[in-house]
């Protein structure tokens, strides 16, 4: 089937999408946007998180057809103007990255969290991000990154 959607502000049309394909495989294999990661492909780890219209989704759980006409923003879209988003900057500065495979999904989840809750408590951070698995960091420095980003963004988020 044919799929039309906007990805990171750009109109894209993909011709040969299988009916059973996920948004994740379209992003990765058809559009080459491999920043969105394929760690579990069953909605357990959050590594494939993207914005679908304004909501954060696990793109592995979204059928490609469900994204018809939608606006999708991936991790590649956050630093589109060549400058790191404050969330990305905070992850780098806080040492919240090790192998980095969970990082794009976590960056998206934190970006989404701070749009909704500009100054989250520790409990809110833990609860809101509990759907994103990280195997390397033990999460402590990710929490530091969230605090750092919350302090820097002052409620302003844009991509």
């Amino acid at each position: 089937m044919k799929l039309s959607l906007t990805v990171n502000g750009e109109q894209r049309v993909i011709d040969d999408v299988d009916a059973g394909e996920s948004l994740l495989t379209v992003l990765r294999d058809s559009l080459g946007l491999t920043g969105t990661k394929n760690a579990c492909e069953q909605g357990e780890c959050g590594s494939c998180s993207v914005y679908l219209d304004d909501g954060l989704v696990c793109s592995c759980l979204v059928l490609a057809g469900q994204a018809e006409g939608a606006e999708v923003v991936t991790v590649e879209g956050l630093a589109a103007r060549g400058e790191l988003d404050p969330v990305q900057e905070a992850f780098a500065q806080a040492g919240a990255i090790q192998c980095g495979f969970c990082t794009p999904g976590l960056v998206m989840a934190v970006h989404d969290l701070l749009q909704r809750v500009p100054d989250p408590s520790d409990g809110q951070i833990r609860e809101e991000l509990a759907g994103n698995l990280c195997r390397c960091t033990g999460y402590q420095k990710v929490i530091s990154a969230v605090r750092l980003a919350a302090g820097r963004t002052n409620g302003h988020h844009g991509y």
Partner: protein
Amino acid sequence: MVTTVTDRVRGGVGESVVRVDAVPKVTGTFDYASDMRADGMLWGAVLRSPHPYARIRHVDATAAATLPGVHAVLLADDLEGKRTFGLNLDDQPVLADGLVRYHGEPVALVAARTPAIAHEATTLIAVGWEPLCPVTDMEDALRPDAPRLHDFGNVLRHVHITRGHPDEAEADVWVDGYYETGMQDQAPLGPEAGLAVPAEDGGVDLFVATQWLHVDREQIAPCLNLPPEKVRITLAGVGGAFGAREDIHMQIHACLLALRTGRPVKMSFGREESFLGHVHRHPSRIWLRHGATRDGRLVTVDARLLFDGGAYTSSSPAVLGNAATFAAGPYEVPNVRIEGTLVYTNNPPCGAMRGFGAPQVCFAHEAQMDKLAAALHTDPVELRLRHALHTGSVLPTGQVVTGSAPVRELIELCARAPMPDLQPARGRDQLDYPGTTGNVTHGEGVRVGVGYAVGFKNTAFSEGFDDSATARVTLSRSEPTGCLKSAPEASGEAQRPGSGVVAEIRTAAVEMGQGLTTVLTQIARTELGVERVVLHTADTSMGNAGSTSASRQSMMAGGAVQLACRLVRDRLAARARGVAAPGGGPLPEPVELRDGVLAAGGERVADVADLLTEPVAETAVYHHRPTTGFDDAGQGDIHVTFTFAAQRAVVEVDNELGIARVLQVAAAVDAGKVLNPAGFEGQVEGGTAQGLGFALMEELQAENGLVRNPSFTDYLIPTFLDMPPVLTYAVEEPDPHVPYGLKGIGEAPAIVSTAAIVAALRDATGRELNRVPVTPDDLAGLRPPRPTPGPPPVPDVPGQWPVPYYHQRASTQSQLM
């Protein structure tokens, strides 16, 4: 060129620096193995055995081969090269040839236009199975009537260690304990993946996430019937490893398909296949007997270990060697007997996972120390302090601890660490109760527990293995392209010391997320006095750097980079002699490169940039000090050096519901010298998380040999809600004879946290808890402690080396890891 010599080079050893790969990783541009692609690429898929033990009567691949979009189907009969591979022994079939020995063993390969077609084709391969009765219990594997899974039997290795006079040791107080550990999985988030590209010379270029490029090539090339130089391996981005990528997973299969089809072939495991397609942490059964005098002196330890290696050898012999040498704990004990056995079963193959044999025995010996303290009516911290190893202590193997061993300081740091604020039982935020969002308890029956654990781990390979590391360092004025560049700050570079000079590092040492590449740039900055460092992607055109495992690469690859930098310095000093005193003698010591200048005897001689009329390049190989194997009594200088760690865990348990929450972990690590504080903390926090998972939730369940939970829905790893704050402490007592005095710190924190958390759970519940992971049924008392009829008889083996070595089965590496 003018350089301000008062400026200090930033980002050297000892500073917290931002990772060199941070920006590509946060922007999604870092290329992991599963992100690789090539024009005309096909996708590979594997048909795996649904049985733990079965004969293959026939295979019919006609339907698969004729499916539109399928380019190749390969069976065992199609293999033209060597048919087996393996880390310590080449006993693992590339494709099953008439027999499978575990659930998930590869049987056939498919290359097709899309992943979906490749997968469909695997389902069209008809296999005539004759299921056999599997051996899935490690004690059953030792019985004389058990089916023999390999021609020499089911015992892979038995290690025997005797020190002092264990049979005559007189003690007043004895404590016996039996302990079990389950099968933990590394569960790296990045799936096993790679891309094999056939080359015009008949060889193949492989891009893969692995832990040791050169040992991969050693195993791959014979199976392709190619000389090693025609198998060129480049490291692709590694999404975590923790031991899971030490063994071959998709490398040989993708190369076979690429060579057969003449097209690039990509393979990328899904999560279920990842769980089935890599080795795991060995399940274990451990029997310990500790004897002490009435006044609290530990006089003897008797240990019997049984480890389940699963179907094939992998790195099991070395895991067992480690477990045996650490079985008495980081304590001085005059009389010790350790009997360690590792058997084959039809369970999934086990091999390397962070800690490599140490977490299992740490769980057991630390439980024993608490039991012994209770029997002696003494404080468990005091008992540990009294027996803690120190420099000069003698281990059960007779090895003398010659490096730093600040075990007492580590324990004391944990004991002195601030306790978490304990909240009242009622009226909390739901997230602050055990079970958190599960909303299961409101404080009824919640009790606090505190527990301690101490453990240790060898750095680098042991038992006589010379696992050297090679690095090449170039210093020049030119700017290379296409590499990972690293500078502490981008701005104001023109005025920085050493500006205009760039150092390049070439090493095949693998970065898998732990932070090695960042540390190597720090070493180069400190040694060369320049800020701009460029890292080239690791590949097999470079010298062998050994494995990224055994906590070894900061010491080994770091040591090689340091040596290469010093050779570069010497070359520049030779050039500077001509400048400073033409025809004169050597420069006054010390000759140093710092902050962009070459200095001698504390005086500036020349700007480094001015000396670089030609680039300078040097290659160095770092060797650790030699070690030995075990003699007949298990004595020997087995390990290179040790890293010690201690932790205190504070937990809360709802004793009625059996639900636990870890409130805080205080983690002290014997770091020698911390090279990058941010990276050090990250390793300690992350290692603690994996230990917490092993204590409370992580177990790959193999029921009668069938893996029951190969998904993140059913194999649970800690989340943000499970991890408590970790207080991290480093003891920096430099290890002599190691670069910067550093210790490898990747594993030690992961070893002790399981034991510390379970000790705290025992304190909170009063229950024995002799098996990990601990379940709610264990905590609530619904499941009794695991029973044992006592240890099985010690097997009759020809000697201390792995049994197959005595049956003319030479190892692929010829020596143990």
